[in-house]
């Protein structure tokens, strides 16, 4: 399984959605505020990369090595 980490699917779709900000000229919130949430959500919606597969095992190991 391979996951592209730095550029999640759909990330470039915004390029092709013209004029979105101009539809809401009276919105108080600047355009980048939505972009910030999108940036965050684009990572939230990425599948976990393979490197996380071992995490459960690491947790179990940490359980027994607890100080």
């Amino acid at each position, binding site marked *: 399984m391979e996951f592209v*980490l*730095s550029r999640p699917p759909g*990330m*470039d779709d*915004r*390029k*092709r*959605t*013209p*004029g*979105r*900000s*101009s539809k809401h000229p009276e919105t*108080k919130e*600047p*355009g*980048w*505020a*939505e*972009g*910030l*949430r*999108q*940036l*965050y*959500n*684009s*990572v*939230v*919606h*990425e599948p*976990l*990369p393979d*490197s*996380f597969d071992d*995490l*459960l095992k*690491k*947790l179990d190991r*940490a*359980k027994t090595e*607890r*100080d």
Partner: protein
Amino acid sequence: MTDGSSATGDEVFKRDLLAVLPHLRAFARGLCGRPDFADDLVQETAIKAWVARDRFTPGTNMRAWTFAILRNHFLSELRRNRHQADYDSDAAERMLVMEPDQEAPLHLSDMEAALLKLSPERREALLLVGAGGFTYEEAARISDCAIGTMKSRVARARYQLAHLLDPDRDTITIEHEKA
């Protein structure tokens, strides 16, 4: 795998911890701008959280609790200078070659690059409140600062980010931010 009525406290904790991993990844990515470093931070955070699970009060906000662990871990890593050297130079370069052809809103890569130009405190504040949806109070608790400090960091971060992303609208933004 079974869960539900037979789940022990540890199992519930683990399930909830795993459920917040995507959010931890998003927060970490925003903080450091590097996917590999971010994922290391998240895994290390998950282990720290697991080891410290007795200190988590069931029913409270797992996302806020783990975010606090992650940001403390991130800051201590920064203090140790690990990974720091090259993390924002590439992003800063990308920022300088923004394409002028788009009528559309900014590209996410531009946003990422601009975020990395903020100080870690402002970046964190903006990520928590502007992206993560935390209240000022929750964000202040995560960052271990006063609410007023958090509000001020968010305001400054917003102003700076607006300036970085859209210098032409600077004056309008200033009016908003002063209000």
